[in-house]
């Protein structure tokens, strides 16, 4: 009787952990997406110490989620017995985590390289920033990333590694993950459909329609081939 009750508790803990991992994945996706969006402004005319700080903060948040997720998934997988019901789900989470980590590490490497190319330590460095056409900042994106909460209630002690250490850490983590747990990567079936997601919005071509301005009775211009842009009249300023 006691044995049966104990396994119920185990099952419940396991279920909680799996749910936490699912939510953590969504959170990690959010943070990494925001990180990438901010990274695209590096080296552009809106680059500055503010952007770099925001990037650092986001990276730390991602690191927190990653370490927690890594710990939980590892325990879930190592404690898995034969014929466990949520085996498929946990393996799926594992593969998603691996792909996430890889993708994020790539972004980290790019950011590190860009920060070296555009050091911003002196005033004249600002002249070299690329005029990309950005006008606003990325504070909204940073705010979105900052609002992400780690789904586990316990406050865990985590270090705040710097960029170089972080990248190396992920390398080590990935190798260790591949060696410790034997998950056949290619057997994972995706749960999302290919065209399942719909968030209708105007396409880039619609937005890029150029204003038609008739100045001094000059109307119409060259018709560009296969261009959804309307009549173009370049304003000579």
């Amino acid at each position, binding site marked *: 009787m006691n044995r049966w009750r104990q396994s119920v508790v185990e099952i419940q803990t396991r279920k909680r952990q799996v749910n936490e991992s699912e939510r953590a994945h969504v959170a990690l996706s959010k943070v990494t997406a925001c990180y990438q969006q901010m990274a695209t402004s*590096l080296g552009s005319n809106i680059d500055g110490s503010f952007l770099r700080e925001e990037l650092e903060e986001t990276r730390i948040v991602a690191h927190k989620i990653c370490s927690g997720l890594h710990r939980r998934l590892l325990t879930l997988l190592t404690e898995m017995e034969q014929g466990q019901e949520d085996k498929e789900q946990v393996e799926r989470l594992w593969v998603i985590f691996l792909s996430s980590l890889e993708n994020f590490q790539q972004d980290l490497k790019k950011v590190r390289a860009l920060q070296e190319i555009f050091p911003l330590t002196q005033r004249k460095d600002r002249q070299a920033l690329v005029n990309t056409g950005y006008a606003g900042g990325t504070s909204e994106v940073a705010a979105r990333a900052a609002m992400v909460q780690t789904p586990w209630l316990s406050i865990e002690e985590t270090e705040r590694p710097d960029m170089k250490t972080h990248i190396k850490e992920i390398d080590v983590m990935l190798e260790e993950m591949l060696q410790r747990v034997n998950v056949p990567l290619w057997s994972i079936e995706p749960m999302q459909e290919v065209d399942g997601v719909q968030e209708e919005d105007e396409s880039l071509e619609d937005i890029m329609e150029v204003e038609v301005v008739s100045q001094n009775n000059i109307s119409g211009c060259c018709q560009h*081939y296969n261009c959804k842009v309307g009549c173009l009249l370049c304003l000579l300023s």
Partner: protein
Amino acid sequence: MTIRNVRDHGQRYRPRMACLKKVETVVLEMQDPKTGVKSQTQRLVITTIPHAITGEDIVAWIANRLKIDASEAQAMGTMMVAFGYIYPLQDHKRLIIKPDTSLYRFQTPYFWPAQQWPVEDTDYAIYLAKRNIRKKGMLELYEQEEYNNLYKWMNHKWDFIVMQAKEQYRAGKERKKPDRVVFDCQERAYWVVHRPPPGTVSAMDHGLDRMVDPNLEEKKTPDYYRRIIMFTQQCIMRPRVKSSVSIGALVKYTATYKEHDPFLNSCLPSNPWLTDDITYWNLNMPNVETPTKMRVERWTFSFGELLADPRGRDDFRLFLKKEFSGENLAFWEGCEDLKWGAAETMKEKAQQIYKTFLARGAPRWINIDGKTMDITVKGLAHPHRYVLDAAQTHIYMLMKKDSYGRYLKSPVFKETQKKAAAPDAHRFSETQLEQNSKRRRPSLSPITLKQQEEEQKAKLAASGPVDITQVMSKLEKKQRK
């Protein structure tokens, strides 16, 4: 998930693109507010976006800064666009610089081409998924095909890809509208460079990956010096030819082939690589009825040329059939088949050739001298790929010295020469060239071509060679009558 195994000696290093660093310095100089390129605002229906630059400004700046003339500056500008440092705002699929008032903008450094990281398919999948999420049916045909491919072989990652695409889309929405437009333009331009649509030439087509990182400086270890020593020793041991002789040969070759070189002379009707019009290839298919005049002229250069061209070989075969000496060519072709064919059928092929051509009283007996026959028969006891080499060379020389000369004077050849086609040169306008580039389609798959070849071979075999016994029996029948 990439398999991380650095000891597999795989080819994964991209060829040297040291020019990237140099282009970057030039691009950074262009940003200077005082001495850089003048920028203006692009007016769209919903907003205005700064930092648009005109093609003519870019070309003028490059010409001024690097002290070169306008056409070279235009070429350099095109190179920058082809690499993806600058992207066009109109006609985004053509990566060239138009030295007029067409607008361009600088690409953000995150999307610059980098030598050390190849562009990942995962990112491309995420980008396509994002486009799909944003508006259904927005993907073009080639993008849809890629998307389906990626779905198939990245199937295990697909949940991650869709999740990340959704999140990236929502993160992008957080930005203000003009910045959103700019980011979308940048991303689109990035993927035009790295996954070019059909009809676009991007500079990232760099050929095969190398096994060794070409940007690494090689360490001067004892092994390295050993390799250098071996190489130089082999160079010394090579047989030497007087430079007057070798230069004479080069001059003769150039004089003969000058008219036929597509770089030095224009192809008729037009070079498909330049005009995207494949008439030239269609006219020069291997089994075409009427060859072109240039092709027929090539056959007169040497016997090797005649045999190498399948149409020429067909013509020669026809001529030999009329002369009843087709067995030489058939034997030669059989030997080629043996040399280049599959290893498992080699023994049977060798035996078949022996029975048909070399044995005493064989139906298509070829005339080779006693010594060669001896060597060949001895070799056939243990057949291998090159066992018939000696006989083949003998027959080749025979055909070259004897039949080839007669062929060039024969009515068959003269007939072919008369009927040969001489197409006029195409003259395409700019718009026609653009249309052509959009109409590009992949050519026939090699599988179809191979099937056609096999069918032709089977037809030849079925039509049956005329062998001596048949001819002799026919003559005998006639005599008896």
